[in-house]
């Protein structure tokens, strides 16, 4: 059974269940890179250009980690667009090329382009070409795709219900455990609900859900008794509602999601604060983050903490800033 390596980075957090299902249905063994460690990050930083954003550096590290796992293929998809009229950032468009240019002795890359900004038919063609590498049976490819889509739906529904991606991706599948963990993950249980602070943590899924990279922001906030709201818990239609009054549609999918969530929460939900997490060197975030910050400042008095992550961020520093922020939010809430 040929083995295909998938880096535990970037869109892993958004699409892994679908990719895994698809390849397994085609009879491949799926091999993940290890969880992020300092070694993994360092090996990525070493091959990357200095000013590359942190998540892409980390991606290189995970590719490097997969090299000696005996895989036959490496899955580095080119994600151009996952919906009509919106794109991912240019780095996703050039990712396989950058990996190939910067890194040596790689197993063959599976070049798959995902571009849903075009006609659906084109996407099916690309998908079919990918499947054809492993089976000549078109029905099998079609079935694998269907199952993958279903798997993705399940995953997304679970997240809307309050699970974090890590709950779904890296813990057991048992239903009971899921319920218990959902409760934990919502941060309830420690403090009486009315005392809970509700803080939204917004940012790219690949930053927030990698505990090493995010310095476990979720965990830290939970320990402080904060109820966390993430972007995954806000439905796509709510996100769209958030951005409906913008003059110009946001043409980045992640940008739309972050901005949409931020504005939706500002308008519709009772939240006490927002932590906006961006990575150093991120192009889209430099503009979206700025807009979110300005709109928050102008419209309502909800405190916003802007955290920039890079490979030199220290855990202690992040903790101090989070604590100070939570204290401030608490103080504000109490004095209101």
């Amino acid at each position, binding site marked *: 059974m040929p083995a295909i390596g998938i880096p535990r980075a970037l869109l892993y957090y958004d699409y892994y269940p679908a990719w895994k299902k698809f390849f397994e249905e085609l009879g491949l063994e799926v091999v993940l890179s290890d969880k992020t460690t300092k070694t993994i990050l360092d090996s990525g930083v070493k091959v990357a250009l200095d000013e590359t954003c942190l998540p892409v550096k980390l991606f290189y590290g995970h590719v490097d980690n997969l090299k000696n796992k005996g895989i036959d293929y490496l899955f580095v998809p080119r994600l151009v667009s996952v919906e009509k009229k919106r794109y991912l*950032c240019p780095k996703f468009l050039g990712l396989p090329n950058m990996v190939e240019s910067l890194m040596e002795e790689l197993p063959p890359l599976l070049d798959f382009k995902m571009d849903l900004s075009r006609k659906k038919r084109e996407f099916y063609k690309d998908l079919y070409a990918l499947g054809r590498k492993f089976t000549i049976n078109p029905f099998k490819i079609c079935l694998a795709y269907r199952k993958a889509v279903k798997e993705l739906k399940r995953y997304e529904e679970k997240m809307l219900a309050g699970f974090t991606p890590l709950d779904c991706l890296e813990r057991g599948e048992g239903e009971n455990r899921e319920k218990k963990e959902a409760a934990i993950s919502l941060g309830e249980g420690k403090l009486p609900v009315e005392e809970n602070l509700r803080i939204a943590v917004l940012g790219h899924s690949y930053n927030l859900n990698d505990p090493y990279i995010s310095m476990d922001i979720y965990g830290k906030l939970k320990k402080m008794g904060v109820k966390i709201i993430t972007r995954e818990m806000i439905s796509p239609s709510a996100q769209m509602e958030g951005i409906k009054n913008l003059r110009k549609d946001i*043409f980045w999918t992640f940008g739309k999601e972050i901005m949409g969530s931020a504005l939706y929460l500002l308008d519709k939900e009772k939240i006490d604060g927002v932590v906006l997490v961006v990575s150093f060197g*991120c192009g889209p975030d430099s503009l979206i983050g700025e807009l979110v910050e300005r709109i928050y400042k102008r419209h309502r008095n909800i405190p916003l903490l802007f955290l920039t992550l890079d490979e030199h961020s220290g855990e202690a520093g992040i903790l101090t800033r989070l604590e100070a922020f939570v204290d401030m939010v608490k103080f504000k809430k109490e004095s209101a």
Partner: protein
Amino acid sequence: MKITFPHMGSLAVPLKTIFEELGQEVVVPPSITKKTVTLGVRHSPEFACFPLKVNIGNFIEALENGADTIIMAGGVGPCRFGYYAEVQREILTDLGYNFELIVLEPPQGSLWGLLANIKRLGNHRSWSEIWEVINIAWKQVLALDVLHEMSLKIRPYEKKKGATTVLYERAQKLIVKARTHEDITWSLDKGKELLNSVDKKTLDRPPLKIGIVGEIYMVLEPYANLDIEKTLGEMGVEVDRSIYLGHWIKEHLFPKAFRSREGEEIKKVAQGYLNHFVGGHGLESVGRTILYSRDNFDGVVHILPFTCTPEIVAQSILPEVSKDYKIPLISFSLDEHSGKAGFVTRLEAFLDLLSQKKYNQELKGAV
């Protein structure tokens, strides 16, 4: 309505022509200086790309001089430029300025939405009048591009350092003033004459030939690129610039059918290295470098704004291209912190390398 717009190389010339000829008042922002950049940087997001910051500086200076309408271009991604205007509007609003920002962009890729906006800006003059004015401006752009290209070819031969620049600037002024077809044709001839009158020396060896690739704003705007063309020219290098304003307009504002076929060629040669559009000029930077190598250039200089997304993709790939095609390459990632001294030192070292390579080859050829 007092119209203003950002600087980018000689962009102000055609824009001023268009709006003035249509009877609008124009406030051209003061030329970019240190003050412009400082202002822009102070009020822009820290990690925004450099052009956005300089734009903000331009706008603030123009608004202070009485402008009330800003014209910007737009786009639909995936690079940041398409969202510049939206962010800039918010920044300037928060600063308390009273203005309208009009974004000229082809919505859904058609020219008509753009023309509708132009009609409004054009005092509702008749289409034929507007069309004629645009034509004149377009002719100015092309004339300026021709003169610029000439200046790059002549500069390495000038006897007196700076002579080309003096005459080139005089030639530019002629075009700026010319606002009829006849005048532009005449001024272009006159400008060519001026440039040809530069006192030249005979070189014992042909000059090094260097191509410039990279992000368009940095390539076109001398203040942002630390005057790289002039600097290299005065070091005796013949510079070729891969992007001109006319080229950019064709690419962004013309309907697809009018675009050059050059784009296809670039795509084709870049295939093995970057086989997908990545926004901005990322793909062009890779393809152009290969074309420069094919055309026997001695080296390539790649200029990008710090953290420019499409160009980081290119920069990650270019070292491999440079190795495979044996064309030396140097990348400069520039922003408000870049100093001229370090820049010149790196350029000199690069030139040393190139002339060694070239000279050794010639020696080998002689044996």
